[in-house]
């Protein structure tokens, strides 16, 4: 029994290190944040909708509609001017502006479905950003029920399908200076969700695999004791750093590519029903957009690899290299989860600053940002990540030029520090 506890104690000491605990703590905090976000969304979905209404019809059915709407939602605009209604609705944080046309009652009375025009005011393009539109859609269903009840009571129609379904809606979604006719936030969300899920995952996989390769390469060089020989060869330190970065990038891209082929096939099974022409809504990407996405991905990969190269210089062997991939994985997972569910612009300022500072965030949200012409965010991200990568490469080359790679960080002699000297005096 004593031998067993001895082994258990030793195994726990070996396995339970700072580098194994830290990623779990960060992940727990991350999931806590996501949980808060989800509960906030749930509250939003169940809370009273904020809408504006433009009633151009004076008929009885528009009165019924207004009555249902006013009972189920907070109406921040009730007038007859669409432009004014939109301005007020945007200002008041409304989800939509509903327009009841002048022929609404007349059409239904003439056995034709009445049309409610909905101007959706979309705040973000994350998976959770379109939740509030669901409550407005429920409100429209209540309006239909109200009108159906009136029609049954008065016997005003002999067409059962019209009685059951007396209204139709036309959707226009307003998002970041774009006005997209014929599309609702939920449909738009379905279009974007495929890339919302896939792109961050691809980026995370590339970063983790390529980064892990660099760190492992350094760990293996140290463990196999090949580093000393390499450093005495007539080759520039910058060539060693560049060689390792490029080789790791190629291997990382290859591994991520193979992985994502399988994952993409898996994902297409979910989005098979969504077949919408993005160009029709002005969401298609042009050549410049693809170039920017490519540049963003390239500089981000470079930043990741150079960061990993710097981390790799601290490895002692292959095992310690494996544990050092933890911080990189966390840095890749934080933006992956957050950008999947929430739009950057709908996040609190602190979260925005955190995400911007993580270099891997930028390619994850580049495609979505470019769909909505947010060039400033993408270009500023590229500039920031480039600076980050250059600084990291410079640090890596500097470490390779010094003997810190072999001797580790130098412990300072505290007794010789200026403070200690003063104290001695």
């Amino acid at each position, binding site marked *: 029994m004593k031998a067993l506890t001895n082994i258990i104690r030793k195994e726990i000491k070996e396995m339970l290190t700072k580098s194994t605990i830290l990623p779990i703590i960060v992940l727990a905090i991350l999931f806590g944040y996501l949980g808060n976000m989800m509960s906030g969304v749930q509250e939003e979905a169940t809370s009273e909708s904020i809408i504006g209404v433009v009633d151009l019809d004076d008929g009885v059915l528009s009165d019924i509609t207004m009555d249902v709407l006013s009972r189920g939602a907070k109406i921040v605009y009730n007038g007859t001017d669409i432009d004014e209604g939109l301005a007020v609705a945007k200002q008041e944080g409304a989800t939509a502006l509903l327009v009841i046309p002048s022929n609404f009652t007349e059409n239904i009375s003439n056995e034709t479905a009445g049309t409610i025009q909905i101007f959706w005011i979309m705040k973000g393009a994350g998976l959770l950003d379109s939740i509030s539109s669901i409550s407005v859609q429920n409100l429209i269903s209540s309006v239909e029920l109200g009108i159906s009840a009136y029609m049954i009571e008065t016997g005003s129609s002999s067409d059962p399908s019209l009685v059951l379904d007396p209204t139709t809606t036309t959707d226009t979604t307003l998002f970041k200076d774009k006005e997209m006719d014929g599309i609702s936030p939920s449909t738009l969300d379905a279009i974007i969700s495929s890339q919302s899920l896939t792109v961050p995952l691809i980026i995370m996989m590339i970063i983790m695999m390529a980064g892990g390769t660099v760190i492992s390469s350094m760990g293996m060089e140290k463990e*196999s*004791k090949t580093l000393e020989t390499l*450093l*005495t060869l007539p080759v520039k330190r910058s060539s060693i750093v560049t060689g390792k970065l490029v080789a790791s990038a190629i291997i990382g891209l290859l591994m991520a590519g193979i992985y994502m082929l399988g994952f993409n096939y898996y994902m297409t099974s979910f989005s098979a029903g969504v077949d919408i022409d993005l160009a029709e809504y002005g969401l298609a990407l042009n050549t410049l957009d693809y170039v920017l996405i490519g540049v963003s991905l390239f500089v981000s990969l470079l930043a990741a690899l150079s960061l990993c190269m710097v981390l790799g210089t601290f490895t002692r062997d292959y095992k310690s290299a494996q544990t050092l991939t933890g911080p990189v994985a966390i840095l890749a997972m934080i933006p992956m989860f957050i950008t999947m569910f929430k739009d950057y612009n709908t996040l609190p300022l602190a979260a925005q600053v955190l995400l911007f500072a993580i270099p891997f965030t930028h390619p994850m949200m580049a495609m979505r940002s470019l769909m909505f012409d947010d060039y400033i965010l993408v270009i500023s991200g590229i500039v920031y990540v480039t600076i980050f990568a250059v600084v990291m490469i410079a640090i890596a080359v500097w470490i390779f030029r010094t003997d810190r790679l*072999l*001797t580790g960080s130098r*412990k300072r002699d505290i007794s010789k520090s200026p403070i200690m000297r003063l104290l001695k005096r």
Partner: protein
Amino acid sequence: MPAVEVKDLDKNYGSFKGVKGISFEVEDREVFGLIGPNGAGKTTTLRVIATLLEISGGSVNVFGHDLAKEPHEVRKILSYLPEDAGAYKNLTGRDYLRFIANFFASGQAAKDIVARGIEIAALGNRIDDKVNTYSKGMTRRLLVGRALMTNPRLAILDELTSGLDVVNAQEIRKIVKDIARNGTTVLLSSHNMLEVEYMCDRIALINDGVIVEMGTPAGLKKKYDACNIEDVFMRVIT
């Protein structure tokens, strides 16, 4: 001009002084040995001359090149064999030699270097096997081949025969002696006093980061009236 000129060399690791102001010269084509107990500063001195460690104080010149100012030039003419060196495990012995040779030459010249490395390593058909299938002795032979195949002007060999059996060790010693005769200056360190006595033209005894004695093996034996270098060593440090 001496092949290696070390003047007042200091090497500090933080507050710990690994080497404390040592000075010595190695003549061209000479085999010079550094001997001393564990932690005396032998490997540190060799690593400094091999451009791996930065100099904390003093200076080192290798064939007229100031190590602090021209490390890249020094790397072109030296070859360093660390004590516990390894080779890339997923490469074959031949590929490993080819990888190293490509830093020094290209085309036929690189092929000639590899052929020479294969000859020195003398691993037979196993040269085309992956390094991870080699025994410790085979790996050491491959590394000796790697270190000497480029005909370096200066070969720095840390514990040359570490991990080799008696037969292999003797073969390697002969190869190094031949190389020195053909124009390579050799600076080596060893715990094996017999090896040092057999191979070195001159030796320096290093203890606690300081050179405590220097001379030819014969001269030192005479000076201390000792029958071998091991006795000299014990008398000097005690």
